[in-house]
C-alpha cells in the first residue's frame, strides 16, 4: 500500500507545504452531511452515494500513514466542518463488525495505520479539553490511529503549531 502524509484542516492555513505532504482545506470544499443511508456499506461498497468533494478526501484519509487534523472544537468535539468530513469517511470502513481492543468496532477496508496529531483550537476550558482527549482516544480505535497526540492552541498560534508539526515529519 502506498502511504502518504496528510494535513486536513477546517480553515485555510498559510503554509509552505513540503513535497510528499497533501494539504486539504475542508472549508473550501463542497461536502454535504452524511444521510445515514448505509449505501457505502450495502449498495456501492467503498463508495459514498453522494458524489461531492468528500469522495476525493476519504481515499486520502485511508491512504495516509501520517495525519494532522486541524479543527475548531465545539461542545468537546470537532466543530461542524471537520465533523461533517469525518462522518462522510465511513466508506473506508465495512459494515461488518469485529472485536478490537475488547470492544465491537467496524472492520476497516484498505486503511493505513496512522500516526495522528490532532491540533485543536477554540476550547473554552480544561473540562472541554479533557472531553476532546477522550473523543480522540475513541477515534483511535475507529479510525486506525496506531499512535496519536492531541495538541491545543489558540487561533493566533495555529499556523506556527502546524509548521512545527510538519517540521517534525521532515526530521
Amino acid at each position, binding site marked *: 500500500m502506498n502511504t502518504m502524509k496528510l494535513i486536513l484542516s477546517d480553515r485555510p492555513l498559510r503554509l509552505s507545504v513540503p513535497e510528499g505532504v497533501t494539504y486539504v482545506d475542508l472549508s473550501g470544499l463542497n461536502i454535504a*452531511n*452524511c*444521510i*445515514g*443511508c*448505509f449505501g457505502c*456499506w*450495502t*449498495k456501492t*461498497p*467503498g*463508495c459514498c452515494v453522494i458524489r461531492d468533494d468528500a*469522495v476525493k478526501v*476519504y*481515499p486520502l484519509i*485511508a491512504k495516509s500513514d501520517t495525519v494532522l487534523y486541524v479543527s475548531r472544537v*465545539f*461542545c*468537546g*468535539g*470537532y*466543530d*461542524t466542518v471537520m*465533523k*461533517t468530513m*469525518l*462522518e462522510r*469517511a*465511513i*466508506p*473506508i470502513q*465495512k*459494515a*461488518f*463488525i*469485529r*472485536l478490537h481492543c475488547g*470492544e*465491537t*468496532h467496524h472492520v476497516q*477496508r*484498505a486503511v493505513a495505520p496512522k500516526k495522528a496529531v490532532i491540533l485543536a483550537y477554540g476550547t*473554552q476550558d480544561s*473540562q*472541554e479539553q479533557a*472531553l476532546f482527549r*477522550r*473523543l480522540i482516544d*475513541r*477515534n483511535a480505535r*475507529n479510525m486506525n490511529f496506531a499512535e496519536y497526540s492531541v495538541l491545543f492552541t489558540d487561533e493566533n498560534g495555529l499556523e506556527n503549531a502546524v509548521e512545527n508539526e510538519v517540521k517534525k515529519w521532515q526530521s
Partner: protein
Amino acid sequence: MAVLIVNASPRAPRSNSKRYGEIFSEYCQEETVYFPLSKTNHEKICEQMEQFSKMVIVFPLYADGLPVTLLHFLKTLEQNPPSQKPVVSVLINCGFFEPRQNDIAVSMLELFCKRHGYPFGAVLKIGSGEAILDTPFQFFLKRKMKKFAAAVTSGKNRTFSVTMPIFKSVFLKASTNYWIAYGKKNGVTPEQMDTMLIEGK
C-alpha cells in the same frame, strides 16, 4: 405540560431514532410532541421550546460523537435560547454492542447544557441499537425505556443502559448476518460488501 422530543438523526423520517422516540411516547405518562430536525426548522423548534419544561433529544452516535445535524441545531439554540429552559434528557443509540460507546456523546450534551444553563435530566444509552428493535430482545429495551420515561417525567438525573443480553461472539455473528441480509436486499453479495477497495482503488 408535554414533553418535547427532538429527533436529531440525519435520517430522521426513517430512522431508528424515530422508532425509539415512538416507544418513549408509549411509556411516557405525559403528552409528547415530536419534532424531527430538518434543514429548515431549527429556529422554529427553538421558539417552541419555551412551551416545554422537559425535552428528550433522540439521536444515533456518529463517528464517536454527536451527529453534525445535532451540532448545527445546538449552534442555532446558542443563538436563539428560550426564556424558559427545559430539562434536557438524552436517548442515544449506537450500532455497537457496548452502550458505553455512547458516553462521549452524552458528555458533549452535558457540557452544552452546563454552559448554557439547561438542567440535565435522564440518559438512556442503547447498544446494538441498529438491530435490537427487530429481535425478541426488544423486551429488554422497552423495560429500560419505561424506567427512562419515568425519570424524564419526574425530572430525575438518572442514567440507564441496555444492549442485547447475549455474548459478544454471538452478537458478531448476528450483526454479520444482519448486514449480509441488508446487502442482499440491494443485490450486493457479502464478497462485494467485504471489498478492501475505496472508490474502486
